[in-house]
């Protein structure tokens, strides 16, 4: 590994934390309304981050072009979020505040996030709710007409706003409607069914993108003054995850190869409550919202190898292990803690079901206490979804759940302005690494996506646009020629191999390596092994993959092949990052670094930094840059939920 370079400047403001965002905004250059229309901004992605950013920038007067893979911006992966969105409104009068949300998020992230960013997130959280309510997002209400809340893991206050079990859908429809309003005003050019395949840089500055039109196969060039990458997370590197099928690392990875550093790629969130794997036909895993842990109790049989039906296991022979091990947070411990605890139970033979890789989530007590109707009101659609997939009725028998890959805290490294190490390229939402450290708290991704898109990027984008550093070129510039030629050559190569293995089969193999060795529990030896296995698989991919069809029409296999090819490179970086991080923190658990009772052992002395990797070429080790993290407010302590 090459020596680390300390050039990374987070441009984080100093001074009292509560004034930083206000002061920073004042210090940023403004662009007057009449001049904004002279700037063209590309927004890649229409999830919560991209949809809200594109709409807001257009409202402010910028010329915006918006891209997404799906046939409509409304279908971005954000649509699937179920449980809710946090905000420190303190409507429940239970002691919440901006500071507490900030504190919970820094602590929940196991002290691996940047304090200034997290504070800002907490500060704008309330405005997000205001904005969404004004757009007509049908948040849950109390009888008096006021907004209702529920609790989520990692917090002892009730600060989560929700719209039944479809919060992501409703927030996304809100952002989408704001976006479409700008389409109708002529301020946004909307180009769905496009996949960004190259970032174009001129003298190292982001100047546009090349996208593939997924219907015609044509490569299209788009020049702009700034590019906002809002392309979501990379959980599908594991093949099985709760992410939508099109979620990918491609856009971020292509930017990484053009100079954007990738930060903390090994920080992956494994969500504790998902429907267990049922067979090798499976193409995705389905999340059962964390909100269920408000009322559901997690347990396993106290004796290993107990195969009785749940109803036949008396109370005294059940182990409600979360309540036992973490009495103060109980079933609402953060996700990393809950997931690891269930893995431990299963490793020790107390797992249930025919695979032994599941635990119970039981609603019997809640139904007895509040009645079936109340439970139906709260979780009706989730229960229905569960029944549809498993054929079992969770009102009668406990749910079976197991952890699954869900979210990725890592992402492109960004400074306080959300600008990457490529000037003019910004990253928003799950695509960046900014706010969640080593573990994200439930209901905080929606908050971050909308904070980035509605409030942060629209203000900070002037850090580039007014910097005098803008490189606007025509699409005939050699940099566009080159980027397009590169993208075409890659597709042609993929189509020409005609080997004996499907894209999906190779992806599945990669996923297995990642899950076994770069998943919930990692070791030095395993990670080294993973790296050599990934390299071998990558070679096999490029000699054995079979991609049917042609480039010149809708070709889902070709799209998928391009994404899997990038996962094959990216997986290695994840393993490298996990190998480098000789500590356990948040979602990253190194077997060598644990306390006596199996809890994560963090090493602040040596690893209180964000690891930002710089690409050196495929088959070469990336080089490490560190952003040192200092904690002026929330002093690092051993995270305890006991």
């Amino acid at each position, binding site marked *: 590994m090459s020596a680390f370079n300390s050039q990374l400047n987070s441009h984080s403001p100093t001074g009292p934390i509560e004034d930083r965002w206000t002061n920073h905004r004042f210090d940023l250059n403004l662009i007057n309304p009449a001049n904004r229309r002279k700037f063209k901004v590309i927004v890649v992605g229409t999830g919560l981050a991209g949809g809200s950013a594109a709409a807001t920038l257009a409202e402010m007067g910028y010329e915006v072009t918006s891209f997404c893979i799906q046939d409509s911006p409304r279908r971005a992966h954000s649509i699937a979020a179920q449980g809710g969105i946090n905000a420190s409104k303190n409507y429940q009068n239970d002691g919440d505040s901006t500071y507490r949300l900030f504190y919970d998020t820094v602590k929940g992230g196991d002290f691996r996030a940047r304090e200034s960013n997290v504070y800002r997130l907490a500060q704008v959280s309330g405005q997000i709710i205001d904005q969404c309510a*004004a757009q007509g997002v049908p948040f849950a*209400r109390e009888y008096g007409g006021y907004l209702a809340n529920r609790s989520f893991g990692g917090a002892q206050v009730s600060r989560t706003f929700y719209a039944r079990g479809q919060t992501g859908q409703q927030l996304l429809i809100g952002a989408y409607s704001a976006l479409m309003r700008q389409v109708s005003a002529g301020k946004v050019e909307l180009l769905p069914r496009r996949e960004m395949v190259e970032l174009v840089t001129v003298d190292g500055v982001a100047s546009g993108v090349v996208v593939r039109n997924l219907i015609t196969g044509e490569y299209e060039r788009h020049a702009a003054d700034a590019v906002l990458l809002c392309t979501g997370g990379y959980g599908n590197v594991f093949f099985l995850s709760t992410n939508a099928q099109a979620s990918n690392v491609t856009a971020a990875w292509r930017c990484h190869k053009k100079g954007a550093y990738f930060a903390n790629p090994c920080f992956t969130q494994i969500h504790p409550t998902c429907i267990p794997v049922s067979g090798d036909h499976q193409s995705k895993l389905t999340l059962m919202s964390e909100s269920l842990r408000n009322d559901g109790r997690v347990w396993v049989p106290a004796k290993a190898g107990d195969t009785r039906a749940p109803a036949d296991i008396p109370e005294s022979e059940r182990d409600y292990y979360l309540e036992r091990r973490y009495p103060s947070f109980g079933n609402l411990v953060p996700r990393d803690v809950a997931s690891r605890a269930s893995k431990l139970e299963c490793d020790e033979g107390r797992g249930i079901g025919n695979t032994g890789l599941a635990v119970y989530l039981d609603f019997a007590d809640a139904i007895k206490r509040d009645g079936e109707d109340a439970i139906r009101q709260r979780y009706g659609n989730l229960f229905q979804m569960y029944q549809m997939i498993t054929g079992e009725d969770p009102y009668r028998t406990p749910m079976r759940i197991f952890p699954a890959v869900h979210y990725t805290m890592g992402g492109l490294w960004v400074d306080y302005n959300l600008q990457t190490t490529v000037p003019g390229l910004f990253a928003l939402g799950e695509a960046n690494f900014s706010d969640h450290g080593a573990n994200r708290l439930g209901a905080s991704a929606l908050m971050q996506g909308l904070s980035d898109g509605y409030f942060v990027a629209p203000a900070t984008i002037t850090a580039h646009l007014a910097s005098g550093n803008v490189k606007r070129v025509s699409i005939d510039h050699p940099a566009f020629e080159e980027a397009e030629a590169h993208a075409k050559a890659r597709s042609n190569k993929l189509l020409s191999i005609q080997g004996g293995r499907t894209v999906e089969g190779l992806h599945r193999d990669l996923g297995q390596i990642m899950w076994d060795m770069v998943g919930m529990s990692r070791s030095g030896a395993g990670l080294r092994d993973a790296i050599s296995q990934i390299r071998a698989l990558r070679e096999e991919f490029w000699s054995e993959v079979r991609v049917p069809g042609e480039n010149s029409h809708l070709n889902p296999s070709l799209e998928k092949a391009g994404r899997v090819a990038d996962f094959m490179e990216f997986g290695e970086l994840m393993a490298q990052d996990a190998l480098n991080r000789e500590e356990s923190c948040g979602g990253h658990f190194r077997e060598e670094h644990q306390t006596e009772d199996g809890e994560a052992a963090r090493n602040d002395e040596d690893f209180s930094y964000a690891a930002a990797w710089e690409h050196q070429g495929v088959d070469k080790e990336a080089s490490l840059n560190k952003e040192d993290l200092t904690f002026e407010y929330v002093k690092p302590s051993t995270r305890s939920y006991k």
Partner: protein
Amino acid sequence: MKLTLQIWRQPSAEADGNFEIYTVGGVSEDMSFLEMIDQLNRQIVLDGGEPVAFDHDCREGICGMCSMVINGEVHGPIKGTTTCQLHMRSFKDGAKIVIEPFRAKAFPVVKDLAVDRSAFDAIITAGGFITSRTGSAPDGNAILVPKEDADQAMDAAACIGCGGCVAACPNAAAMLFTAAKVTHLGSLPQGQPERRARALSMVQEMDSQGFGNCTNERECEAACPKEISVMTIAQMNRDYLRASIAGDEA
């Protein structure tokens, strides 16, 4: 299980299409319908053919991408589900299954089972929003919304924009889709200022996108995976009528 599939194949929007027959084995009843098609596609690819193109993304019934007509039924035989939520335990071993794309003039086929639903985006662009600039909103609790109104709005807002209502309608009308949005926003206090203008311009756009007229068949409601009620259509008709009488600007 082993199945016989009769699937609509059409190379592109311009090309003619036809049904092809396939057999697929090794289907487990825990598979989702789309996983069964994945299985078929693996087989086709390894045999040197081109897999069946179809739209899908979330595979959990919320994104609205998947869009198949299965044995003549939009999203298949189970009520209140999308194609991706349908599981093979709903079919018998040896079954013959006919699979077609959503068919409507306003939804041209892109390839095989994938169709172009951008006409829906056009309807939303015509007025499916509340004008509220980022940064201008009052405190969330400053606008009280009675719980019943919020619930009614939410019922309508559950629409996933899949287009199943259009595919099920003998006239290929987009009434349920449009009405769901009109009702969602019109049920809330925030949506009142633009209520009539919204109904008027969305209905006009619906017509100009080539959707058919509503003749109260109620097939849309029966097919809707989110079970959106046709009562929303009555609501939209009232708003539209009021707007027309008042001569509101669209």
